[in-house]
């Protein structure tokens, strides 16, 4: 099975920050097929389009997935109304995830705001070999720091207003680490300017870099060609699709 669609039981719901919720969903088949960087496509009751949400945790033993999402509009607000014990309609797991390598000695995971959740499965894969740099608007918007530490990763927190951690953008501590060298891979998800900055630093320092993109999406599986993203394919400009070719792309392929 590559992906399936069905109704799955929400076994846990937490409010992790203002307007940000965490669901644990029992879906053994989906969890078994899922890999870091993939996403689930969730039906929002009363809406035509599903909402793509990145996977924040994969527990193949328990048969569960975890998603952490922010209320961004009416659709995600509808999904956030679901509670523990409710069924959630998902088409999952979808997309092309991160390339992981157990031989890597040091990796940097970078998350900006609600782009942070897809970094957690990578932190769990790499454990103490991972440094997680995450940036948020302020202290109260910061999420998942304890989860990253539990996975064994080192955490560097940045906030826009300086209310916690480093006052400023994630690219500042990242550039320092990149200059020191010894980094095998960088994985990032967040706002486009952040991803663009990180890609530039990786290019300068010749570091393997993968980024996870988002785009307004319809089918979720590569049929409708709605979620276009400008990329380079065999040195030619090409509209790839975030749902099937991505959401994870090699940074060097993306045309900004």
């Amino acid at each position: 099975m590559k992906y399936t669609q069905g109704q799955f039981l929400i076994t846990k719901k937490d409010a992790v920050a203002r307007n940000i919720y965490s669901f644990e969903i029992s879906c053994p088949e989906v969890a078994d097929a899922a890999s870091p960087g993939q996403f689930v496509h969730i039906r929002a009751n009363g809406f035509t389009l599903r909402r793509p949400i990145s996977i924040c945790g994969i527990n193949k033993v328990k048969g569960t997935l975890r998603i952490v999402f922010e209320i961004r509009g009416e659709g995600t607000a509808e999904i956030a109304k679901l509670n523990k014990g409710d069924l959630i309609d998902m088409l999952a797991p979808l997309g092309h995830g991160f390339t992981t390598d157990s031989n890597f000695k040091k990796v940097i995971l970078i998350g900006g705001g609600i782009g942070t959740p897809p970094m957690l499965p990578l932190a769990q894969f790499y454990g103490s070999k991972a440094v997680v740099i995450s940036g948020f608007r302020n202290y109260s918007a910061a999420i998942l720091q304890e989860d990253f530490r539990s996975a064994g990763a080192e955490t560097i927190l940045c906030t826009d207003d300086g209310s916690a951690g480093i006052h400023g953008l994630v690219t500042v501590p990242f550039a320092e680490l990149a200059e020191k060298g010894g980094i095998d891979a960088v994985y990032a998800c967040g706002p486009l300017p952040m991803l663009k900055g990180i890609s530039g630093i990786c290019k300068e320092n010749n570091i393997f870099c993968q980024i996870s993109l988002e785009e307004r999406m319809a089918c979720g599986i590569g049929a409708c060609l709605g979620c276009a993203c400008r990329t380079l394919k065999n040195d030619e400009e090409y509209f790839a699709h975030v749902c099937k070719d991505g959401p994870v792309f090699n940074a060097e392929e993306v045309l900004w």
Partner: protein
Amino acid sequence: MADLSVKICGVDFKNPIIPASGVFGYGREYEELFPLNKLGGIATKGTTLHLRTGNPAPRIAETPSGMLNSVGLQNPGIDHFISSELPYLLTKDLVVLANIAGSTVEECVEVAEKLESTDVHMIELNISCPNVKQGGAAFGTRCDMAAEVTRQVRKVTSKPLVVKLSPNVTSITEIAKAVEAEGADAVSLINTLLGMRIDINTRRPVLRNNVGGMSGPAVFPIAVRMVWQTANAVKIPIIGMGGVSSGKDAIELMMAGASAVQVGAAIFTDPFAPVKIIDEMNDILDSKGISSVGEIIGSVQPW
């Protein structure tokens, strides 16, 4: 079990449900979920003479009970379709409607010519795409242009020719009559309605193309009205579409005059929608004691 089979332009469909062009690609992605042979047919992604890259993103927006798209006919070109997609689809025991489009009459003709030597079952000539600058809707919104492109494509194809009509016109029946007069074997309608959304925070249109085609349940009553009007204006069969999301909707559109029904945006909400619609149609017909779906086509009793 009601008999769901229908015959359109001499082509047998095991049931009247067809995923609409553009939502279903060439079928491969949905085959992961259900076997394609459950479907009556498939209208493949609009295909042009050469590869088209389509419009920049965002190409998709949610609307009340519907959506907008401005994909812009991204497709790999007709040669790729014929060599790499069509042979596979032809093994799947369903009717293949090759949806074709072009920026010029000559391009449409050339694409149809290339399909002539294939075993594709039907051609659906798209004269109504709202998302391309040339061709597309320009053909579909003027009677003389609709007639001209139909006449020229008719000359080069012996395949059953279905012309897909735009609802963005003053009178869809005039366009339907014009393409019927030039040899169209059937018409399909409605393509999407031109729409727009604006992000009030950025004052930018949500779609990078500014405008796009609207589909989904919100357009269904318009589809019913246009199918009904067209059924009263032409003798050729109609393949109806526009916001169908249940077996009840499909039956309603057939009562208005459609011989078969395409399903579009509903597939985004529920990827199993076409299969569920087939089952629901069967249940409704059984409950009404109707033995064949053919009996309901055009059976509306207008006041």
